[in-house]
């Protein structure tokens, strides 16, 4: 017996920033689209973005998309694809103006234009500096304002949401074309096949593979797990961003916008140590650079507090008035989670897992690409991805602050547009294969009938602990090797998890078990890719290969679930219209 079938032109999985931006394109074009989300759309993790969205509007002084492109390429440590980066930086200003027209409550300048603040790694004059004000913001609640605005615009466009539905597996026909997904309605526990001409993943990040993370509980890499089970590789999974300023102990994010507005970091001697590590950009160097500097200070005994395990973020000198107008959310978070009022005392902070640079391989049109024969980037028909779950790749080995929101706006829209093009050419549904839904059925049956297994929370803790210990800010060959071994043991345990709750109704134990199936693919991909990459680049910093190696490693990793194998593909060094930004030594 197969699952009941529902038919749509397209299915979008995820209703955060990129999913909502894509669904808006499709809803306004009149297509019959199902948007599936594990949570009510405004509860998606885009809501937690704070500091701003990058676009060269030039409202605060001279700026250009070409400078933004240079900064992004340099920030990526030259692993970003320059065609995709050019596309994003050129489209960014238009995306911001669209959002403004949709009603987004951006902060304003006296002349009525959108206010922009400085952010790490964003400079004038092709990296020469000084810092440029490029981050468009709504106080320190930019993601919240953006997500709500996009949801509101979708309400206006009558988009069709399936709220609290979890996508489970991809359905492909014999030719490899994507023809739908299976999904579970959480309230009833019922599973359906969503038969569609196209599927677009916008499932966000997977930061919950780490024990200490700024990410929401829902960030479990669902899209990545789903495509990897369907034979599609994951790209550049060794590159994880550790945000310099997570609240020590709690992991909650403190925006880089604090440093953009003039805050800075101190060690236990009261020294503004970033001056030593990045003489020009100082506290506004790229995130990987600042996170490493902080970790070095702590490692060398200059950390603060009883355990000497954090550094301090000072902003009281900005004054209560500026803090309350530009950084009110931070003040709230610091009081609640760090027990300090930042208008008086510094906030204890540590580098904390924040963003996944890798993901589902796509081109800049949002089409998912995978090797077929000699073509390393053959388009998978009917499959699209955008936002953090996708790897276009615009962030390469390290993402610049503000570029995640830019990414989800620009690529959410372009993936939506590409889906529309595909739907115009593919008027009818391809038939479902005879075994459609079987993988999902097997997974659910296994879970329901499992006895003598371990609990999801126990195995999940082992997964997060393994990633945290072996795949952190600094990477060591022995730890990476043992990490690969350990995570493969955890993988065996994931296959035997047991839940006590067998209810059909809103069974969150079942949801968490199914999420763990996705987290494990992300974790294995990350460790295997990290162990294999014998260089240091961006966020991947190896003790035994301290330098970037462009001769051997200027290439993207591709991890395949089957056999946990790796392959590699070239970085796109050719932009769309301008000249290549050639690799050089990266200093700030």
């Amino acid at each position, binding site marked *: 017996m197969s699952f009941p079938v529902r038919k749509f032109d397209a299915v979008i999985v995820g209703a955060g920033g990129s999913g909502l931006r894509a669904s808006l394109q499709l809803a306004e074009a009149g297509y019959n689209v199902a948007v599936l989300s594990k949570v009510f759309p405004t509860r998606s993790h885009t809501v937690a973005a704070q500091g701003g969205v990058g676009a060269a509007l030039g409202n605060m002084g001279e700026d250009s998309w070409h400078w933004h492109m240079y900064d992004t390429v340099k920030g990526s440590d030259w692993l970003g694809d320059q065609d995709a980066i050019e596309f994003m930086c050129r489209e960014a200003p238009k995306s911001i103006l669209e959002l403004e*027209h949709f009603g987004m409550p951006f902060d304003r300048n006296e002349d*009525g234009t959108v206010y922009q603040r400085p952010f790490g790694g964003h400079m004038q004059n092709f990296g020469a500096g000084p810092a440029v004000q490029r981050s468009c913001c709504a106080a320190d609640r930019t993601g*919240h304002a953006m997500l709500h605005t996009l949801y509101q*615009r979708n309400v206006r466009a009558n988009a069709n949401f399936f709220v609290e539905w979890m996508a489970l597996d991809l359905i492909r026909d014999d030719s490899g074309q994507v023809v739908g997904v299976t999904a579970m309605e959480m309230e009833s526990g019922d599973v359906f096949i969503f038969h569609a001409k196209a599927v677009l993943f916008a499932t966000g990040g997977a930061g919950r593979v780490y024990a200490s993370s700024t990410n929401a509980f829902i960030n479990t890499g669902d899209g990545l797990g789903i495509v990897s089970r369907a034979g599609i590789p994951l790209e550049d999974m060794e590159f994880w961003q550790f945000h310099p300023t997570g609240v020590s102990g709690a992991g909650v994010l403190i925006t880089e916008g604090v440093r953009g507005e003039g805050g800075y970091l101190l060690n236990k001697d009261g020294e503004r140590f970033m001056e030593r590590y990045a003489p020009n950009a100082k506290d506004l160097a790229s995130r990987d650079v600042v996170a490493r500097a902080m970790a070095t200070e702590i490692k060398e005994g200059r950390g603060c507090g009883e355990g000497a395990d954090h550094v301090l973020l000072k902003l009281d000198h900005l004054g209560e008035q500026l803090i309350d107008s530009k950084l009110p959310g931070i003040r709230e978070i610091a009081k609640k*989670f760090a027990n300090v009022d930042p208008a008086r005392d510094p906030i204890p902070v540590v580098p904390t897992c924040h963003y996944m640079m890798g993901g589902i391989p796509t081109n800049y049109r949002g089409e998912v690409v995978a090797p077929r024969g000699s073509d390393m980037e053959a388009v998978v028909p009917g499959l699209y991805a955008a936002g953090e779950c996708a790897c276009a790749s615009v962030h390469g080995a390290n993402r610049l602050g503000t570029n995640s929101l830019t990414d989800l706006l620009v690529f959410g829209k372009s993936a939506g547009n590409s889906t529309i093009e595909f739907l115009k050419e593919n008027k009818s549904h391809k038939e479902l294969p005879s075994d459609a839904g079987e993988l999902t059925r097997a997974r659910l049956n296994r879970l329901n009938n499992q006895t003598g297994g371990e609990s999801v929370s126990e195995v999940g803790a082992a997964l997060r602990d393994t990633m945290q210990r072996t795949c952190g800010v600094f990477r060591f060959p022995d730890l990476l090797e043992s990490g690969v071994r350990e995570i493969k043991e955890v993988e065996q345990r994931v296959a035997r998890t047991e839940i*006590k709750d067998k209810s059909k109704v809103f069974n969150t134990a079942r949801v968490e078990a199914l999420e763990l199936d996705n987290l494990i693919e992300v974790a294995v991909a990350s460790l295997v890719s990290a162990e294999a990459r014998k260089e240091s680049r961006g966020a991947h910093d190896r003790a035994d290969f301290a330098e970037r190696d462009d001769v051997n490693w200027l290439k993207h990793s591709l991890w395949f679930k089957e056999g946990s194998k790796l392959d590699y593909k070239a970085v796109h060094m050719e932009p769309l219209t301008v000249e290549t930004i050639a690799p050089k030594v990266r200093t700030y």
Partner: protein
Amino acid sequence: MLFKIYRYDPDKDAKPYMQEYDVELQSTDRMLLDALIRIKAMDDTLSLRRSCREGVCGSDAMNINGKNGLACITKLSDLKTPVEIRPLPGMPVIRDLVVDMSQFFKQYHSVKPFLVNDTPPPDKERKQSPEERAELDGLYECILCACCSTSCPSFWWNPDKFVGPAGLLQAYRFLADSRDQATSERLDNLEDPYRLFRCHSIMNCVDVCPKGLNPTKAIGKIKDMLVKRMV
């Protein structure tokens, strides 16, 4: 620490009951949500919503010792024991602490919560002065957690007719936006004995809002706009 938690699974329970949990907390458990997650690790049958764990997504609203709040920003040290936890009041319970929010969102959607401006947009932004933008402060920050509406007796009695504090706060967010052109339609939509005027300013909404917002004040401003429109 002792907790008493409302339990109900329609798949197996004839009626709801309160279950006690005695939990050994760790020094890192700061917020109520940390304790609930520890309970869930002991007993995976407890269902609740949660996501951001920092008070911005609005998932984990619940009734805590008689008052609505977000579990993730409610400090354990501030709670009197045994901590009694129930689902948000006045809403149909799906299971345990998970309520059916349909009516709440229906009311939110009923205020047309999106900017209406039918003039073709300029090539650049629609200008807005810092003062005009400041009118939106205290309004746009709503996280739709429903703590306010489900603490409001008027919303309990008439959830289908009274918009409720959260929806009205958002109605005013668009009335207050210098870029919005639908003022009179928005006021028409609210000029009704139930939709707006069931608010009797008892201010439960202000008391519980985890973001420190003031729906009663916004409702007052809508009433002012209606009065001004009449004269």
